[in-house]
């Protein structure tokens, strides 16, 4: 889940990006963890996550047998149930929230459920601190992202980076992010459709369609 740590942007740009994830520790609390991971996801699903995932697929995923009529009526509905059902063995599960309130509400329920699994929050430093204070949590450990170091200028512009780095395994390519930016600017694709195209490439389900939609809307009128 270093894949949720390094996202391009400043604190303000993470205002709609709160990720909660649960992970069992091998040999310490992985017995019976599958049911606990499902409970965690069920709690998160009650608080309208923007996305959720089980390390294998997210609530938006590619179809291995797409019906050709999909070009005119693609299904954009979120499928959280299949993410929960598909948890078969101990591993990381995650839910993405588009606001602090929803993340906090989910976290309160997770605390009450007392699952015994390690729970982490990935967002701005201030955002996580604030959530911990309001839910009465004393942080155990913290890992700071020092960002991307690119001494030889390999990286593209900030709009492309903001969109593509939300899949921390690098499955959302720069070129695909750029293509969606262009399609939205040219009126060839709605921001809603564009973000779900990007989200389908992220197999962990940690891509944040809500933040991506805002970034695409911003980019439409503000070329960089």
């Amino acid at each position, binding site marked *: *889940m270093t894949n949720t740590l390094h996202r391009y942007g400043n604190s303000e740009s993470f205002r709609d990006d709160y990720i909660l994830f649960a992970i069992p520790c091998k040999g*310490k609390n992985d017995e019976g963890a599958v049911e606990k991971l499902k409970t965690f996801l069920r709690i998160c699903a009650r608080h309208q996550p923007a996305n959720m995932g089980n390390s294998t697929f997210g609530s938006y995923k590619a179809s291995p047998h797409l019906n*050709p009529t999909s070009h005119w009526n693609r299904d954009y509905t979120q499928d959280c149930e299949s993410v929960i059902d598909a948890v078969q063995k101990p591993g990381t599960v995650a839910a993405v929230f588009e606001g602090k309130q929803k993340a906090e509400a989910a976290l309160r329920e997770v605390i009450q459920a007392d699952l015994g699994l390690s729970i982490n929050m990935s967002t701005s430093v201030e955002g996580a601190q604030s959530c911990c204070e309001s839910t009465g949590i004393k942080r155990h450990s913290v890992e700071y992202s020092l960002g991307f170091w690119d001494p030889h200028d390999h990286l593209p512009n900030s709009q492309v980076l903001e969109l593509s780095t939300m899949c921390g395994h690098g499955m959302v390519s720069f070129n*695909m992010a750029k293509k969606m930016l262009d399609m939205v600017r040219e009126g*060839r694709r709605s921001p809603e459709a564009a973000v779900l195209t990007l989200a389908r490439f992220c197999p962990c389900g940690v891509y944040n369609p809500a933040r991506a939609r805002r970034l695409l809307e911003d980019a439409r009128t503000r070329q960089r």
Partner: protein
Amino acid sequence: MQIDPKKCVACGNCIPVCPMGAIYIDPAIRRATINYDECVECSTCYRGMSQEHLNPVMVRTIRGLAKMFRFRFEPEPDVCPTAAFVMEELEWPRIARRVFSDPLVEHKSTGIHGRGTEEVKTNDVAHRVGLGEAGYVIEFGRPGVGVRFRDIQKMTQGLAAIRVDFEAKNPITHLMTDRSTGELKPDLLNEKILSAIVEIKTPIARVPEVLETVTRVSKQLETVIAVGVSTRCDERGEEKVLSALLDEHGYSYYRAKTNLGLGRVTNVEKVEEAARDEHLASVR
């Protein structure tokens, strides 16, 4: 990864999908083709695109007619109309590309998906990074650039020279032939992967020295790196030591991963072991 030329209709949908930009339409054969040396076997094209399984001859005919009349069809951009990608069996050393680039492939050394270990994510249970210690995750190649093992080796050699502890369970550590020098298996050095993570741990006072080394070596690498530094919070849940060091040395950090401390040991054997130890200690 391969593209079946009998199935490919050269629609070009897969070209922007590839994180390494390794797919192109070969004008000689009029089919999408993969630059085998640049492909990192991440399977994004195979798994990330939806597949339609249409008849390739029919699709080529329709596309040819539409092209003749300059019609432009606006298809869904993440679809391979003929399911033309073929996942192939890989052998050493090329298989290292898939293991490090495809997040759905489990590393044998860690038993988990992904490029690193559980790091501080389970620190409340595993106590990997303690008070006064700093853990580092130095990630190469991501986003969107990729990295060859020879560049990773430059960093592991640089870090070994200042005598740091490499995380034993990390997949890169497993590929070292000598941890004291940071050398990796020589037959891997030219292999390209999407990303990899080197994990180390030091006393917290050494953070500036380590980051300075990482900065210096990163200038010699033909890739991009992302650095994360972690530590344990105090009993009040506050962390002022590492952040002060980072501030003092001019490192920016906007985002963090926070372990909320809700985990505990629940495996029956481990709980009994802990109770036994406690009992023995009280008897003594």
